[in-house]
């Protein structure tokens, strides 16, 4: 098990109810972390119901859901970005 900071932005943050939390996990990939969180509580399952509607960053770099989180300090989930 390891600790990783998990961050949520925009409607993902609102649905989960916190902007950031330290999570103890044995997940090796983003997808495994999503499965672990979704199994915990309904609010996670609801937020992660359709991961095609979400983006993920590992240590502040955009990546894919099959990416490794081994050694990662920070994993962030958010909807597609709307800057500009």
């Amino acid at each position, binding site marked *: 098990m390891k600790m990783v900071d998990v*961050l949520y*932005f*925009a*409607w993902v*943050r609102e649905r989960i109810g916190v902007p950031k939390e330290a999570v103890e996990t044995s997940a090796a990939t983003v997808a495994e972390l999503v499965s672990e969180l979704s199994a915990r509580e309904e609010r996670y399952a609801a937020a992660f119901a359709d991961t095609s509607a979400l983006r993920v*960053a590992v240590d*502040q*770099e*955009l990546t894919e859901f099959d990416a490794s989180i081994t050694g990662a300090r920070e994993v*962030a989930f*958010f*909807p*597609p*970005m*709307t*800057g*500009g």
Partner: protein
Amino acid sequence: MKISVQSEAFDLGEESTAFAKGHQDQGAVVTFTGIVRDNSDGTLEKMTIEHYPGMTEKALTEIADQAVKRWSLGDALVIHRYGDLVPGEMIMMVATASRHRKNAFEAAEYLMDYLKSRAPFWKKEFLKDGAEWVDAKQEDEDSLTRWK
């Protein structure tokens, strides 16, 4: 290169003038400014822009670095605000400096296209009858293919 993520308003004139100065070998400066637009019903009360501190600065710097390299820019600038903004307020600006105008225009478009879909900002609109997150547009994603 200047990258600024800030909640405070910026002065377009001052920023543009400061940017255009001191580039004797650069013949062209292009600036673009984004403004909070009210909807057609005039019901937008405010817009809140959320961002990912740390990643935002990193992503904007990477995007600007790419533009500088690809178009051999003399300089680039990105200012993007977060927090609460009302219709008519300036949200962001980009500026590019190059020897000739074509590169400056293209690089400014590139910066805009990338920071719309690749910089971690999210807009929430507060309308008279409720609030909603702005959905990303497929056309914004599609516009990136032009630069591949």
